[in-house]
């Protein structure tokens, strides 16, 4: 993505943030889309477990983010990445509320029935068995644990970035990550023991 690399050359995320905050630069937002689309989609997908819903929600996240910037609500303490994740989390919550009566396909079921053309899924199932197990067990974790597992170990965000997204202190996030990892490990190993 040439636009991302061009943006990185001139100061990357900070320059994008300033262009968006001061000038509400539309082109800068498209560059931000190129920069963050994959990680936002991944976050949503691993939370939702449905390709179609993940696509819809991710589209909505970027549009909501643009409206937020356009209305001049972008504060100096909000860099773009944490803002996108915050909006993504809220949009997922809204999605669950709206679709309460709709039958959703859990992530593990999606793994069995999903479209083989979906690259993210095919990449997962073609990997080691451990990965498949992790993928299946992730939806069984508490919401908060799942958030930190995806943000820290899949999307590789820093502790301070996660703290800003979740509205917690860095210390609290470290504890949360530790407990989430223990919980996932216990769930995965429990499954292995039964096997």
């Amino acid at each position, binding site marked *: 993505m040439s636009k991302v690399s061009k943006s990185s050359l001139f100061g990357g995320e900070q320059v994008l943030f300033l262009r968006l905050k001061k000038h509400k630069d539309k082109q800068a937002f498209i560059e931000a889309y190129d920069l963050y689309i994959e990680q936002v989609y*991944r976050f949503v997908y691993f939370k939702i477990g449905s390709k179609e819903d993940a696509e819809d929600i991710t589209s909505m996240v970027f549009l909501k983010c643009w409206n937020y910037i356009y209305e001049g609500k972008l504060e100096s303490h909000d860099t773009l990445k944490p803002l996108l994740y915050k909006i993504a989390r809220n949009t997922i919550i809204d999605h669950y509320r709206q679709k309460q009566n709709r039958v959703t396909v859990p992530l593990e079921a999606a793994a069995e029935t999903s479209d083989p053309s979906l690259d993210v899924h095919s990449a997962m199932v073609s990997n080691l068995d451990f990965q498949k197990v*992790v993928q299946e067990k992730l939806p069984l974790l508490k919401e908060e644990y799942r958030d930190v597992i995806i943000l820290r170990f899949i999307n590789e965000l820093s502790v301070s970035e996660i703290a800003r997204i979740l509205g917690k202190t860095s210390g609290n996030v470290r504890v949360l990550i530790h407990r989430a990892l223990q919980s996932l490990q216990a769930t995965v190993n429990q499954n292995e023991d039964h096997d």
Partner: protein
Amino acid sequence: MKTMTEKELIKNLAALKSASINPDWIKRNREVLSYQIFNGAEYADTKLGFFERFSLISKRVLQPTPIAAFIAVFLLVGSVFASRNSTPGEPLYIAKAISEKAQLVTAFNETSKAKLNLEFARERVAELEKVTSNETNSSEARVQELSDGFKKQIESAKARISKIESNKKAPVSEETNEVVSAEAGKADKGLEISLPAQKALEEAEKLFNEKNYNAAAEKLEEAGKQLEE
């Protein structure tokens, strides 16, 4: 299958990152997003109209202004009324001085201003009587201040009366002979008015210097009446 260690777990989680997303969808969605933000249809509702903006401005900025102005006017009028009977040395005397200056500035013509000078000169006489009758409040500095104030008002009144006289004397010219003759009666009348007024003023000044304040005040009143006529 063997038990997964924490390290292996983290490694497998990180491997999930390598899974790529459908590039066609990313491209399609990019086009849709570009269309949405460049056309601006989605945020049209968030734009405020002129009256909404005006209403917000009036609530935040304009609303406190009339209240502050009302309070300022209320305080000013109140202090001017309260200062009417004040004498030098009292806190409200400054309001009285400001009020007198304001009246002089806003007076319409020289006659009105001269009348105001006479009125203020009478005020100084009244204040002087009040100050000298009150032993505790009496001081040489205050008496001197009031005397100077009186003389200043008299001088101003004299100057204004002279100005009125000079304005009423029509210029002598062959070309404007008709005008001169038309104005001649009025000029004479002006002279008739101002001369007794000036005489009364001089008498008032003399009485004031003799510390005959009541008589001085009466003469000032007389001078004022001459001006009114």
